[in-house]
């Protein structure tokens, strides 16, 4: 019998709240974190997209100036979320050799990299600061979290584009089940609201161009969806072996019952139109958690609001859950906070855990004309989830054909 793994701590900093209580309150209310960017570089580079969903609490309001100086903005968000999750878990006595980190990012230190490149071009190599490498490396966030917590059972950085945050939970579950750790700080962080990534995502037609109405730009499942909205932030979850949590009398939010990761091997960016890879991921996560379709009451969907992405996920959900999919309350929370790329899976995992724990599904906003090809039961107004034993799923898919799914069971 595999070790049971539970979730005992949650943290987040997002466009709809700088901590978990604020994010959760807003997620149930239905707010938009997307706003027009007032940065000079939007006009300077004539960017085709003028808006994004920035973190509602700037990192420098939370960290000291000196702390922040040695961290890329993505790492700053990750450390903020991890500290909240750690405090929330309330672990006071731990063998640090049994504490691991699995903290993901999709892109890593893009601000640091490009700032250093600008410095090199403008001022020469002597002015490129010595902290540049440790700040730009993708494992910078996992390393910083490990350093912060004194986590010595390994610090890992799953990188699978927009599936990264969910894959971190997959890895965290494995680390505990296989006996390599008793507690794992899992999460994902991203800070890519920079002109280059905005230009690059625009160039591939992935971003919404609704410049005159940013708050309504992220509209998963709506017929008028035209792309995702770039977000930023971080989510963090403390995974703990059940016996470890019980021994210290911890508050348990839920069980991380099953996870899975698959690859489409179909196309570098386009999702498999039949959602075959996503279907396999859903089925594998359910198998891993010994979950029947009828157990599932809620799905936090990947649903980025792109014309091509939202439908294959529906196809996959129907293939994995069968007719029961019609009874499942589906939330597309990127409608509120945009797409946090490598952090999205972690933040959505926090929301999924809270949905199970609080028996409330977060809202999907901006759904005015639901795409008839995606007939899901989308949560657009306050929705209470059933009592008793329930399961919720959260999906994440990433460029490269990465599919990752987690299943959270009530305790």
């Amino acid at each position: 019998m595999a070790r049971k793994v539970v979730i005992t701590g949650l943290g987040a900093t997002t466009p709809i709240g700088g901590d978990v209580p604020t994010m959760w309150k807003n997620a149930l209310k239905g707010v938009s974190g997307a706003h027009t960017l007032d940065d000079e570089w939007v006009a300077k580079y004539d960017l085709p997209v003028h808006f994004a969903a920035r973190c509602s609490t700037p990192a420098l309001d939370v960290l000291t100036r000196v702390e922040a100086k040695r961290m890329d903005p993505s790492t700053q968000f990750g450390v903020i979320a991890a500290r909240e999750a750690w405090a929330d878990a309330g672990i006071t006595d731990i063998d640090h050799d049994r504490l691991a980190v699995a903290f993901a990012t999709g892109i890593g230190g893009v601000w640091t990299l490009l700032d250093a490149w600008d410095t090199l071009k403008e001022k020469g190599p002597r002015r490129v600061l010595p902290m540049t490498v440790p700040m730009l490396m993708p494992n910078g966030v996992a390393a910083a979290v490990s350093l912060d917590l004194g986590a010595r059972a390994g610090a890992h950085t799953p990188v699978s584009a927009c599936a990264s945050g969910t894959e971190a939970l997959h890895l965290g579950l494995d680390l505990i089940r296989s006996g390599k750790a008793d507690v794992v700080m899992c999460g994902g962080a991203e800070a890519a609201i920079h002109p280059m990534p905005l230009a690059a995502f625009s160039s591939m037609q992935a971003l919404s161009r609704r410049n005159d109405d940013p708050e309504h730009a992220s509209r998963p499942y709506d017929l008028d969806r035209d792309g995702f909205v770039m977000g930023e932030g971080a989510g963090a979850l403390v995974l703990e072996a059940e016996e470890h949590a019980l021994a210290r009398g911890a508050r348990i939010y839920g069980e991380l019952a099953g996870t899975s990761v698959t690859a489409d091997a179909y196309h570098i960016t386009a999702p498999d139109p039949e959602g075959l890879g996503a279907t396999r991921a859903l089925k594998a996560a359910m198998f891993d958690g010994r979950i029947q379709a009828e157990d599932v009451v809620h799905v936090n969907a990947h649903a980025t609001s792109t014309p091509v992405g939202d439908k294959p996920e529906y196809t996959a959900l129907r293939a994995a859950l069968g007719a029961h999919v019609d009874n499942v309350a589906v939330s597309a929370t990127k409608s509120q906070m945009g797409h946090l790329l490598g952090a999205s899976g972690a933040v959505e995992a926090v929301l999924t855990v809270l949905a199970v724990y609080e028996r409330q599904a977060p809202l999907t906003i901006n759904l005015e004309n639901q795409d008839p090809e995606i007939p899901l039961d989308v949560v657009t107004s306050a929705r209470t989830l059933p009592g008793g034993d329930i399961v919720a799923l959260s999906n994440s898919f990433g460029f490269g054909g990465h599919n990752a799914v987690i299943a959270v069971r009530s305790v």
Partner: protein
Amino acid sequence: MASNEEILAGLAEIVNEETGLAADAVELDKSFTEDLDIDSISMMTIVVNAEEKFGVRIPDEEVKNLKTVGDAVNFIASAQA
């Protein structure tokens, strides 16, 4: 050309920016490593920022000789002369 007092004040500002140490803790007889607990990466950051601020070049092989704040002030002053 900055006076030694001006160089010390400028250096203290750079050290404060990098480490958070109070500027008035940065005194001439203080050792960067022993007294101010500045690691090698911070030291190089301070050097790079000092070069920019004072318009001088501090060669890498010279940095190990800058044991105290006073050493750095004297080096910058002579480099500016």
